[in-house]
């Protein structure tokens, strides 16, 4: 494996974007940092600014007010980037389908690489989703 590819797989930096979720998925993402699941042993850090990030973790159905902000944050993440949609809301918008306030699930707005299903998914599933996304996207380049 080339040294660049190996470094990209070994050090994915995460940025967490909440586009209007109920906070169930968000607390499971933060729980992935705690000692029981410890995502830092894989090299992941939760960074504060989208310009530092590689992996964008998106939760929530995209509400109308968060739509311009979600697009803006996506554009601020430098290439090569990975988008992981976490939870049922980000995958399909349910259980809020039919609402006027939802601009559609995330893959109508930005290209999504990996979907992690669950309401909310367990921290282990989130970690697996991040690792799969990173291996698939960077391994093939």
């Amino acid at each position: 494996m080339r040294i660049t590819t190996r470094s990209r797989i070994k050090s994915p930096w995460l940025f967490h974007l909440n586009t209007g979720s109920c906070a169930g998925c968000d607390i499971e993402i933060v729980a992935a940092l705690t000692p029981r699941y410890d995502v830092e042993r894989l090299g992941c850090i939760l960074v504060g600014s989208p310009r530092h990030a590689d992996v964008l973790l998106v939760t929530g159905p995209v509400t109308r007010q968060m739509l311009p902000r979600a697009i803006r944050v996506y554009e601020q993440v430098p290439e090569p980037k990975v988008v992981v949609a976490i939870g049922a809301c980000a995958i399909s918008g349910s259980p809020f389908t039919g609402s006027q306030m939802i601009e559609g699930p995330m893959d109508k707005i930005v290209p999504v690489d990996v979907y992690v299903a669950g309401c909310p998914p367990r921290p282990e599933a989130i970690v697996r989703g991040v690792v799969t996304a990173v291996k698939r996207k960077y391994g093939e380049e």
Partner: protein
Amino acid sequence: MNTILILLITFPVVFFLSLLFEGVDRKVHARMQKRIGPPIIQPFYDFIKLFNKERIVPVTASSRIFTAVPMIAAAASIVGASIPIASLVLETGIGGDLILILYLLAMSSVMVMIGGSSSGNPYGAVGFSRKMTMLIAYEVPMFISILSVSLNCVSLAYYNIVSAQIGMKSLLAFTRPSMAVAAATFLLCIPAAADAVPFDISEAKTEIIHGSLVEYGGPYLALVKLAKAASNFAMTFLAVSLFFYFPALLEGYASVGLGALCLCLVTALIILLLTITVPRTVFARLKIGQAFKFYWLIPLALSIISVVLSTLGL
């Protein structure tokens, strides 16, 4: 010829060692929190990954300053860290190179600060003002303690202070009371210079989104992080070789050269763990007013006592 070769090798060695020190710091920090933590070579992966990302310069930034700052900061830090190492291996020095080392380390902090304010982000402006306050807070006691050391050894050359310890066959911090006080002051100033909790106020992640670093990404961020790592390494190495030069306790041949360098590095690692990792784990972050008051109360008083005791000959 030999000299030039050693000088050229020093720069990659400093690069390698400073990232290694950062890796050990992160690993020990994680273990103290009951976690496993990243592997020790993690900062190398981070550096290579960041170097290969897209270069984005924000529209609101003054692009020439914004792109030049990380390079100057990294260069200043690495040169500032290589001077002590090259001095020890080559066993020479020039008069006044202690001031040069401190100037280079301060310059890398100032450069990062300027880069933050040139980005056009309001968080960068807040980071700029906070870092300036912190610089005034910790640089003054640090310079005064170095002044007291040079008053004592009657020289401003780095190698002369080291060889004074070899001549006296004891560590400088344990020779006189004034030197012990100066050592304490210098060690107290290291957390602020290294931006470690409780003094990482200018780069608080949860308050001002990394302050000066908020708009830096990709290769620029890699260089800024390298500048910080090299600066931490330089500070701990300086603290060890000026105040706690252990090879001085060994006989003749082993007190200078490569063997002494390795012993110094091990001691520098221990000082790093004590002054950067442990406060990072057990304290909360202070506010800017509280940190400023702390630094102008205790370390400043200690450093002035040290100068007074030095002039009195104690």
